[in-house]
């Protein structure tokens, strides 16, 4: 079980590095899909079955397919964009590394788990998540549908051809 955790973590980190480092956007999308499937495995390890299934459907099934469609429809796979200047790249690596160091140093010794609830492994099941979602979080759930409607309308408005205004 511990081995599975570290295996999934290694797959995730390696594929995330591939997302950043590969030249072609298609390869980046495929590496990100591998990363997300490994993350679904992490959710299953945490016994969050609802989240694992939703994560697979929403991310791997919908969002990544959307990315792939945009890349293919706009024919973006040709590597034409030059890389950033070396000063920017070196400072980006330094920034990422410093952020990692600061976060690790800040969170290294700070966790003492004092659970408010007695330990149970049932919280990730669909029935428990559904009860919480539709009892305590009913209003945010409904408001999120308004967010979705506005995002859809915004996407359609952005996607419409506007001949009068050129950037």
């Amino acid at each position, binding site marked *: 079980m511990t081995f599975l955790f570290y295996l999934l973590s290694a797959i995730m*980190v390696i594929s995330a590095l591939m997302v*950043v480092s590969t030249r072609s956007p298609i390869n980046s999308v495929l590496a*990100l899909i591998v990363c997300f499937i490994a993350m679904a495995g992490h959710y299953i390890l945490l016994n*969050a079955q609802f989240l694992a299934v939703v*994560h697979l459907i929403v991310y791997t099934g919908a969002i990544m397919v*959307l990315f792939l469609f945009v890349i293919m429809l706009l024919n973006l796979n040709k590597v034409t964009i030059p890389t950033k200047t070396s000063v920017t790249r070196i400072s980006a690596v330094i920034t990422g590394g410093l952020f990692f160091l600061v976060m690790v140093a800040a969170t290294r010794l700070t966790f003492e788990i004092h659970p408010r609830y007695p330990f149970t492994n049932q919280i990730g099941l669909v029935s428990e998540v559904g009860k919480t979602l539709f009892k305590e979080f009913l209003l945010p759930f409904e408001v999120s549908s308004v967010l979705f409607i506005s995002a859809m309308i915004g*996407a359609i408005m952005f996607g419409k051809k506007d001949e009068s205004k050129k950037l």
Partner: protein
Amino acid sequence: MQDITSAIQIIPLEHYVFLCVTLFSIGLLGVLFRRNTIIILMCIELMFNSVNLLVAAFSAYHSDPAGQVFVFFIMIVAAAEVAVGLSILVMMKRNVDSVDINLLNRLKW
């Protein structure tokens, strides 16, 4: 099912924190490192997901189902963000015929 329960108890929470910090740093590095807008969007997704995994891990260790609902809401927001972001990307490709982020620098100065 019994094995899965012991997995939560065996692996310390710090390891999840380290994993998620690593993934978040890689996403941050990608946003700063690349010029292709679509890869920048994917790195933002990566950062979203690392935070999601951390919230789910804390929720499992605290046995609190509210955390799982929060992860669900974060997924909703991420899906809306991707829809709008990709349509902005399509508009950018249509207007300047490129997805280079360095061409969109008019708000920078």
